[in-house]
């Protein structure tokens, strides 16, 4: 009997040791990479205010490219962005940015209508527009995303940008599980700036 107790205690101890190693490994596996800086840009918001790369500083930003007439993956992306916008209502240093890839249709007024239709009532979610060449350039060179056949051929990625205006990671904006990963990473970055 005593022997069994010793074996069990030893086994439990070893399991605990193994578990704490695994937990520690898991906790340190959440590091978010650093991709590159967002280049200089200056676009206009749905409220006709200038929004530049400097407005990314000091905040954690989730950014995507979309257009209001898009019937493909955009509704899913917008829906996911709306959920984030709602859930992070109490978090001042999180912001959301959607850049149109169809500026010929999506002027400031159209974007304003679109933002109201999606329940946006403060400046935590900005919709940006500019001329098509600047948008293309930012998308292709700044974010390294495919930008040849706009508006239809726009990327479905959500991009996480940190408080220093650095791109950290890309997520599939239409995928439920990717959104869960994005939330974890977002929380981690927010906690870091609050430290």
């Amino acid at each position, binding site marked *: 009997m005593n022997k069994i107790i010793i074996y069990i205690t030893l086994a439990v101890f070893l*399991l*605990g040791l193994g*578990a*704490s190693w*695994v*937990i520690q*490994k*898991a*906790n340190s*596996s*959440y590091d978010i990479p650093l991709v590159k800086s967002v280049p200089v840009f200056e676009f206009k918001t749905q409220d006709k205010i200038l929004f530049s790369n400097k407005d990314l500083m000091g905040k954690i930003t989730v950014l995507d490219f979309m257009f209001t007439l898009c019937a493909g993956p955009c509704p899913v992306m917008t829906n996911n962005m709306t959920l984030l916008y709602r*859930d*992070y*209502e*109490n*978090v001042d240093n999180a912001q959301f940015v959607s850049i149109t890839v169809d500026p010929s249709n999506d002027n400031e007024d159209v974007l304003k209508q679109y933002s109201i239709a999606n329940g946006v009532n403060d400046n935590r979610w900005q919709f940006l527009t500019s001329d098509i060449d600047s948008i293309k350039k930012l998308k292709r060179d700044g974010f390294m995303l495919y930008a040849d056949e706009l508006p239809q051929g726009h990327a479905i990625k959500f991009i996480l940008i940190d408080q220093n205006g650095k791109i950290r*990671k*890309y*997520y*599939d904006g239409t*995928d*439920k*599980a*990717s959104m*869960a*990963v*994005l*939330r*974890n990473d*977002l*929380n981690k970055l*927010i*906690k870091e700036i*609050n430290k």
Partner: protein
Amino acid sequence: MNTFRIFSFISTGLTFILIFVGGLVRVAGAGMGCPDWPKCFDRWIPPISLEQLPDHIDPAKFNIVLAWIEYSNRLFGAVVGLAITITSYLVLKYYNDIPRIKWPVLIAFFLTLVEGWLGSVLVDTVLNPFTITLHLILALIIVMLLIFAAQESYYYENPNSESKSQYPQGLKWMFGLLAGTLLIEVILGTEIRGGLEMIRKDNPIVDSQFLINMLGPFKYIHSILGFFMTGLSGYLWYCLVRKSKHPSKMMTQTSSLILGLIFIQIFMGELLVFLDVIQLIQLFHMWVASWIIGLVMVQYSAWNQSQLCHE
């Protein structure tokens, strides 16, 4: 020891370890480590680098550590499934005409299949909290059934092992109450964990200690039921060890162990509330609860055997 009992012991032991590994997946946040099921990133052996990821899967979901934690739970689950399948075959071979041994094993076998299916539901629903709780509760029921079957087969071969002991009668509902309360405690406990995650989602910047206070009533019911169980198992210990004549060694040891483990549980629970939500303690808090549930089954089976001897 016959082959059936050897395999029922192996199955029970492996299931306990599987509960531990499952809890590890939970506390490490590795539940979505593999975004598909049963394969992991469309591979039978999880990828070890980004290059191995198929094109249609978003690379943002890939975390090699989490993928392997989750996959080891699945692989170990398959081993347990195999052990329980062999146990089921043996029960049909040796105890086909003893319903009280046969059925618990067969139900455990069926529940094991349900567990595998629940695993796929968890991935599909991106870890629905209700399904997570159900996944654990079913594992605990499987353990209870396996322990009961193993012990009943022992009594079947050694019918006189509890013949000398005389325990107070009419305790059946007490065991039921204790086991029921234990399961409710586990559900409440997982709800506390789930609740913490829900609040954390809306308040990503608040620390765990503050969140626990926000849970309020849940936490108190969990603590109150904990003290209620201490009283209940204390009373059972008193009935089965002190008030009975010639209690078997199995009975005195099991009863004392249950009581001791409940005190350890209270201690760990208070540590989580007052110190911090430490993942390793969370894991052991859940795991020790599963031991207690198994031991209550042993206690009940021994008591029941003694009652049968004196009928």
